[in-house]
C-alpha cells in the first residue's frame, strides 16, 4: 500500500541579504527528483555565504514565528535554525486504515547555545501546535 500525503503548510525563512525564501516558491520550488526546497535553501545559503535570520510556518492563514536574530519582543537571538517534518505510519491492527501516514507534523527549530526551541504544527489533523524546549547535549 502506498500512502501519500501532500503538505499543506510551508516554511518561510528570512535571509541575511534581505531575501525571503518560501517553500515551494521560486528558487525553492519543489520539483520531482531535485533537492527538496529545504535542501535547496541550505545549498543556496552556503553557496552565497548567507545566514537564516528568522523562520515561520504558515498554514491556513495562520503564522507561527520563531524568535529572529533581532527578536521583536527582545530575548536571546538564535544561533541557527532547523526545519523538518516528522511522519509516522502504523500497521497491523483491527482497523487497518492506519497503515497510511498516521501523523504528519511540520516543525521549525531555533538553536541556542544551550537549548533548542521548536514549534510543531499538526499538518494532518486539527492544526494543533506545540512548543518544545530541549537542552542541547
Amino acid at each position, binding site marked *: 500500500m502506498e500512502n501519500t500525503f501532500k503538505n499543506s503548510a510551508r516554511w518561510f525563512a528570512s535571509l541575511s541579504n534581505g531575501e525571503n525564501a518560501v517553500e515551494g516558491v521560486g528558487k525553492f520550488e519543489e520539483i520531482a527528483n531535485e533537492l527538496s526546497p529545504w535542501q535547496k535553501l541550505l545549498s543556496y545559503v552556503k553557496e552565497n555565504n548567507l545566514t537564516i535570520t528568522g523562520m515561520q510556518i504558515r498554514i491556513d492563514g495562520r503564522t507561527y514565528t520563531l524568535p529572529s536574530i533581532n527578536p521583536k519582543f527582545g530575548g536571546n537571538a538564535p544561533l541557527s535554525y532547523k526545519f*523538518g*517534518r516528522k511522519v509516522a*505510519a*502504523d*500497521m*497491523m491492527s483491527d482497523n487497518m486504515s492506519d497503515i497510511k*501516514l498516521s501523523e504528519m507534523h511540520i516543525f521549525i527549530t531555533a538553536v541556542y547555545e544551550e537549548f533548542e526551541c521548536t514549534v510543531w504544527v499538526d499538518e494532518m489533523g486539527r492544526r494543533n501546535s506545540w512548543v518544545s524546549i530541549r537542552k542541547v547535549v
Partner: protein
Amino acid sequence: MATFTWQLQGDSGTTLEDTDKLQFAGATFDSAITVSEYNDTTHVEAAGGADDSTGDNPKNVKFISQTGGGDSDSQADWGDGTEDIDAITNAECTLKITFAHGSSVITSGAIFYAYDGTTTTAVPTGVTFQCFESTDIVFTNAEGSAAALALDDNTTATSHDFYIAVSASPESVGLKEAFKLRVELTYS
C-alpha cells in the same frame, strides 16, 4: 509528497495493503505459535482472512538468542539454521519499509517499535516483540516508543529503504490483537 510502503519480503515481495495484517504464525499460515516460542513463518493476511503472500516464499526470521552468538551477538534462524544476526542480508530481512518523497530529502531520527495499538508508549499486550535492522548485531526488544529500535539515518534521496527483521512470541494462549507496529522518522 510523502509515501510509506511496507513489504513482506519473499521471492518478489508482498506489499501490505491498507486492510492487510502481518501474521506471525507457527509452521503454516493461521497456525498458532506455542506460548514462549517464536514465529516459524510470517505472512500477509488479507482482510477476509486469505493468505496474500502464499506462493511468494515470504521471509521469516525467528529469534533464537539475545547474546548466544560469536562476540555475544544475537542469533536468529532465517531459514539456514541458527546464525549470528550480523550475517543477514537486506533481502533476507522480513520487512522492507520504503519512505519515498517526490524531491530528495534526508531522513533522521527514524525509529521502529511495537505497541498496544492505542498508546505509543505502551507495550503490546501478551506478546514479546524482537527486531533488528540489517547490519545490527543484537536484537532490540522494541516494545513501546521508549524502547524503539533506532534506524540508520539516510542521506539525500527520493527513496529510503529500511530492512528490518521482526520476530514475536505469545506470552499466553490466544490471538494477540493489541499489537501494532509503527515507524516514525523526520525528513527535510
